[in-house]
């Protein structure tokens, strides 16, 4: 995967695993207890920062018109109603509502910022060079290549996460789901739908 295992002067570059072990030992020296934190972090990543969080938000917004308005007005306050939160440096959550004529899609061209506590940690392709380079300039083609064909009359809005405001897409409620419970609706909503590269 790495282009070279040698430095420009021909010395051998340590493997990423060995480099990581070296820096972990430095944090251990400084009493940061890295091993314990890795376990905690892994638990957050696999059990808490899940797209099911955002899916519950979406299902509630589809089901309760008042909640939808509160979500669109102040995302962080609205997700707190479901017991969800964001890190202190994410001071603003903007829900972007897809309609019959507007489709929203989020990205981060400079790094890979996301509302990870709500929609889950970003998938590999979101952090990759291709998506970051192309989606702001060729959004319709990129979405088509990813399997989402949008009619020509639909306006695409691309949101580049260049500050600490975070975004989530509020997808359109699929037809034929009238009368469904919020639990049933939650199961339909995907991380891809909340990034805006797929419909629900």
């Amino acid at each position, binding site marked *: 995967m*790495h*282009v070279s295992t040698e*430095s420009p002067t021909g*010395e*051998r*570059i*340590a*493997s*990423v695993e*060995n*480099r*990581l*072990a*070296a*820096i972990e030992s*430095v*944090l251990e020296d*400084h009493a*940061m207890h*890295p091993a314990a*934190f*890795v376990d905690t*972090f*892994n638990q957050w990543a696999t059990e808490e920062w899940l797209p099911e969080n955002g899916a519950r938000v979406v299902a509630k917004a589809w089901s309760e018109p008042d909640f939808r308005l509160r979500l669109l007005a102040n995302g962080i306050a609205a997700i707190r109603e479901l017991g969800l939160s964001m890190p202190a440096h994410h001071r*603003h959550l*903007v829900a972007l509502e897809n309609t019959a004529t507007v489709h929203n899609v989020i990205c981060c*061209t*400079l*790094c*890979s910022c996301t509302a990870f506590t709500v929609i889950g940690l970003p*998938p*590999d*392709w979101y952090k*990759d*060079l*291709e*998506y*970051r*380079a*192309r989606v*702001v*300039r*060729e*959004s*319709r083609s*990129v979405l088509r*290549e*990813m*399997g989402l064909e949008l009619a020509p009359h639909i306006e*695409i*809005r*691309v949101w*580049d996460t*260049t*500050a*600490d*405001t975070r975004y989530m897409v509020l997808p359109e409620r699929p037809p034929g789901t009238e009368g469904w419970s919020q639990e049933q609706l939650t199961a339909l909503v*995907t991380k*891809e739908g909340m990034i805006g590269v*797929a419909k629900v």
Partner: protein
Amino acid sequence: MNGMHDLGGKEGFGPVRYTPNAPVFHAPWEVRANALYSLAVKHGVYNMDEYRYAIERMEPRHYLSASYYERSLTSLASLCVEKGLVSRVELERRAGGVFPLARPAVAGRANQPERERFVAGDLVRVRSDHVSGHVRMPGYIRGQIGRVVSESPPYPFPDAHAHGIDAQTEPTYDIQFDSVDLWPDAAEPAKVHVAVFQSYLERASGR
């Protein structure tokens, strides 16, 4: 900085390597890399702007060839060396080989002293600043005119915050640009929304 990381609008890349339900991590060391860089933030070794800037300072060939979590690891290690937690020699001794680190930081800059407050609907121009230090203005909006959609809560100014100099907080604005203005005759039609710090903006006259 006008670095390799500033990818928006760069050409030559192929299709997104996309699979539905794609994994976040591909190997256990990636989880550890993610955990450890956030642990150092929690302990105040550095802030997120310093972390991003150290990634941007990676040698460009290394930046492009490194995976996402190798970039995290490189930033973490570079900042630990720069902040004096360990020497590079000792780090490489423990790693058993060369440990590529970020290139040195340059001077940062403070907030613009005179900043204007904008409201939804205002036309603004992104200042034509060329900033060698950390900056959160993607190059594709430099000098461009857009329309203010909304204001976000204030954040520390990253151009200062990444350099350890006094960073006043300032609002960011959701600015809507038209892709066909950003890349005339060379973009697919779309609205492009960018979160832009107040210091990067000035009122656009005319139009």
